[in-house]
């Protein structure tokens, strides 16, 4: 007659069970994302526009530096080139930056109520997507102003955005889980983001990088996503070998990160 609804024990949840649990909490992901967007821009005059002020400022500086001072040779407008890179880079760093801190920022909640903690990390993906789409609008405006042509490859954009999310989460989930135990990662993240941009072809083309350093991009989580954005928007060439290796690597890291996260999740309340 009676039906077992729930069991609490130290048995490990399988990945699929956990993801099912997360799926059941999908409304919560949405609620958290809404909350975060609202809080982030509450009582600001510019609101969501703030999310593009950072990439826009970077763009202006790069534009000045690489066009007026260094005169980087380009057959397309440099601003469009740099912004396709910045767009992907900022989405990526937003994911790893937020994923690393989201659990700590929601301690009070975590100690008082149960929900799959991954929900918090995933809500940050939604927030990032909203901010990303504003950048996208800006890019399109920029392309129209500079008379760039649009190719039908733009239809593949959603797939590249997914690749961007996977790249972000493959690092972000690890950082999320690691920060629970070692708050050191809290300090490592800004450091990673600050220096990472130099190792990433955001404001320079990979053609400037000597062949012998090409291996860096083989495992680089975001470099190849940026290459794909450029392939779509400015018809830049892509290295399919790099793509294959880096995406498989990112995907494996994501799965391993999820498993690591699930194993550590049950201790979150003990550590906080």
């Amino acid at each position, binding site marked *: 007659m*009676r039906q*077992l*609804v729930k*069991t609490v024990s130290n048995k490990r949840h399988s990945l699929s069970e956990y993801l099912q649990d997360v799926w059941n909490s999908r409304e919560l992901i949405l609620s958290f994302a809404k*909350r975060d967007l609202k*809080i982030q821009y509450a009582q600001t005059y510019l609101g969501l526009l703030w999310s593009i002020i950072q990439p826009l400022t970077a763009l202006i500086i790069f534009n000045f530096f690489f066009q007026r001072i260094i005169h980087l040779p380009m057959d397309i407008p440099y601003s469009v080139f740099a912004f396709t890179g910045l767009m992907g880079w900022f989405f990526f760093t937003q994911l790893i930056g937020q994923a690393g801190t989201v659990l700590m920022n929601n301690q009070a*909640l975590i100690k008082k109520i149960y929900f799959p903690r991954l929900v918090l990390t995933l809500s940050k993906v939604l927030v990032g997507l909203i901010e990303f789409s504003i950048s996208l609008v800006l890019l399109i405006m920029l392309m129209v102003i500079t008379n760039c042509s649009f190719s039908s490859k733009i239809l593949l954009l959603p797939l590249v955005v997914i690749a961007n999310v996977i790249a972000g989460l493959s690092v972000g989930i690890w950082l999320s889980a690691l920060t629970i135990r*070692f708050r050191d990662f809290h300090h490592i993240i800004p450091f990673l983001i600050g220096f990472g941009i130099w190792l990433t072809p955001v404001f320079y083309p990979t053609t400037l990088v000597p062949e012998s350093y090409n291996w860096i991009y083989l495992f680089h989580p975001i470099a190849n996503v940026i290459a794909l954005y450029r392939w779509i928007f400015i018809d830049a060439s892509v290295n399919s070998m790099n793509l294959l290796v880096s995406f498989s690597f990112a995907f494996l890291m994501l799965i391993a990160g999820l498993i690591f996260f699930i194993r550590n999740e049950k201790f979150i*309340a003990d550590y906080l």
Partner: protein
Amino acid sequence: MSSSANEIILEAKNVSKSFWVHKRQVKSFKETVAVFFRSLSQSSESFYALRSVSFELRQGEVLGVIGKNGAGKSTLLKILSGIMQPDEGEINFYGKVASILDVGAGFHPELTGRENVFLSASLYGLTKIETERKFNDILSFSGVEKFIDEPVKNYSAGMYLRLAFAIIAHIDADIFLFDEVLAVGDAEFQLKCRNKIRELIEDKKTVVMVSHNLSEISKFAHRVIRLDSGKILDEGSSSTILEHYMEEAYNSNVSGSKNSVVDPPYILSSGISTDHFDVLSIELFASGKEKTSKILRTDGINVEVAINKKKKCSIQAGMFVSDISGNIILTNVSLDSEDIIGNDTFTGKGTFSVSFPPNFLNSGLFSFTFFFVITEDGKEFDSARRLVTKNNLVIKINSPEAESVYFKNIPGYLRPSLNWTFKELQK
């Protein structure tokens, strides 16, 4: 519904949880390395927050969990809610659980009342559709209709709590877990909470409540588990467990003062000795019985305070009777009796006497504190000194043996015999 009334709805089997001492402290990588090397040479320390805790709950039962701070109450509740994982053992739920460890979980000050309702409700497991359906009820229950689209940071504390509680009141589940929820808010809010819990009990919901407030537990719980250092120390009907607990809590009272439940004869050495007088002894006993016999509710209680008066002055005696939480139930002063007032000129030994009539105080634990007010000859009471006994005398008033269980442990401090009458209606 009634056929399933006695089914087991929750079973906890051998639930244990330990914390590694280093686990709780280590926050950085460097410390981990240090701890790792230390652990090679020393055995690592862990302490059990819960040790083999097992219990069962049947549908419609209300379980109270009591114990001192650090006894494991919160850990147990966190494990039941799924926030923490047990090291060993398992808990099976045969119904939907709602755990309410906090009023207003997930509330954010920047969000409006409406937004917070939806966020908080989704945290408690309500779907958006369910929340939409219940929204008007939640709103009218909360009484903050006018301000529902204002950020809650502009709410008064009372409005905030009312809105938060309105959500809790609309959660649908079979098993409810409460942690000290009744400890927040003003009297009106607490009344609302109590009514809600009563409603849950009437609806045959199963409730687990953790509280420091023993009177709260005694009001609702059918059964009580008492935890101590992570183990179940005592389990049984709420009245017996609470009585044990209160006596012990009193016996091991704070600051080493001797406020313990004593056996008869009930004698208090007051320690009061002044230039004007000494208090020789204070005694309580059942009127008309040996001083060594227990006091029953049906006995009158005699109070005798012997003093030795050394100077001319006026001395008034008084007493407070409190419950064991320290709430004063009644107070009495000899000044109110006319014949004692004329004692100014007397010096030497004497005794203040007063008595409670039979059937006045209810059965239970009562604490007696005595005080004296001295006024120098001819001076006003304004210049009086008040001396209070350092210790209090805690006595247990027993129910008469023959009394039926139904009438033995009914709550209340006073149980005077009032005259009830009954008239048959005319045929």
